[in-house]
């Protein structure tokens, strides 16, 4: 078993793709811990999406573009897929095909009613939805899709507010 794991790790290290395109499966508690631990002054832009959600897939290139545009600033784009665990291969295939460079989590969600409100009370549960954190605090939430201009302007605005 250990050998298998090592082989897996080795092939992972050897292949650049594996490192850059890996989808990390987390539960809500793990995701929340991640968010709470980021108390630095980086603006974290967390986008909830799924491969089956057309507007989500359409707006992803805008987030990728924003990531490059703001690459010299303290801005980090994170995607949280709400696909089910059995759709993990589809998620991996999607980020591979679309060449998504920023980190992708898959939220192994359980019952959404347990965590949708915790992310934002105004969130009805429809996706896409985007939340921004800075210094461990929520600074922005939107249920709905973005244009390139909108996402750039919100990031610019939230990144300036110290």
């Amino acid at each position, binding site marked *: 078993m250990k050998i298998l794991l090592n082989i897996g790790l080795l092939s992972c290290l050897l292949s650049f793709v594996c490192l850059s395109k890996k989808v990390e499966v987390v539960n809500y508690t793990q995701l929340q811990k991640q968010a709470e631990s980021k108390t630095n002054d980086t603006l974290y832009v967390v986008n909830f999406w*799924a491969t*089956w*959600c*057309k*507007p989500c897939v359409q707006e992803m290139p805008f987030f990728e573009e924003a990531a490059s545009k703001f690459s010299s600033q303290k801005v980090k784009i994170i995607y949280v897929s*709400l696909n*089910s665990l*059995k759709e993990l291969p589809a998620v991996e295939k999607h980020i591979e095909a679309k060449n998504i460079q920023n980190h992708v989590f898959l939220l192994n*969600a359980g*019952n*959404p*009613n347990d965590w*949708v*409100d915790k992310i934002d*009370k*105004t*969130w*009805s*549960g*429809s*996706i*896409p939805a985007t939340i921004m954190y800075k210094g461990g605090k929520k600074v922005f939430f939107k*249920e*709905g*899709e973005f244009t390139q201009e909108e996402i750039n302007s919100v990031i610019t605005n939230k990144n300036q507010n110290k």
Partner: protein
Amino acid sequence: MKKITSILAAVAIIAVSAFTTEGGYKVGDKVADFKLKNIDDKMVSMADYKDAKGIIVVFTCNHCPFAKKYESRIMDLDKKYKSKGFPVVAISPNDPSLVAEDSFENMQKLAKEKGYSFPYLFDETQNTAKEYGATKTPHVYLLKKENGAYIVKYIGAIDDNADDGAAVKEKYVENAITNILANKPVTPDNIKAIGCGIKWKKS
């Protein structure tokens, strides 16, 4: 004393959520009737349901993968509860110019293919979805008839497992109807779920 504090806390939570959620109907609200075109080209209103004890209003659509996961479960709800006085009325609110799969013709096709035993209405103006405050598909509003008026008793998810109907633990809509039929309060009366955002017309 402890009881009073928890009641106060509950009231506070309700008050907060009432202010933080967007427009649309809340549990306890009286709903206005609608008149929407069914797949058989006839208009359907709630007033047509003279003998109903209530209506299971489901905002759903053709294209959404989440709605697809629930198609057969929506059909089952109608089969099980129409005879008990709670028929299903499905409403598709999406703008077909944004998603061709949700056109009226495609709605007719899907309903025929699946053998829908309930109306599948086209909310062409999207006014009904807006009035309800529906945001996604599927999105359920369970209505109970009280003194001739329809009152919202439950809003949200059909059950707690979209992916696997066999692994469902909580059937929220069914539980709500069971409670109503037993003259018991509906709890929980609001359950959030993931879904496809309604495709609103571009203004």
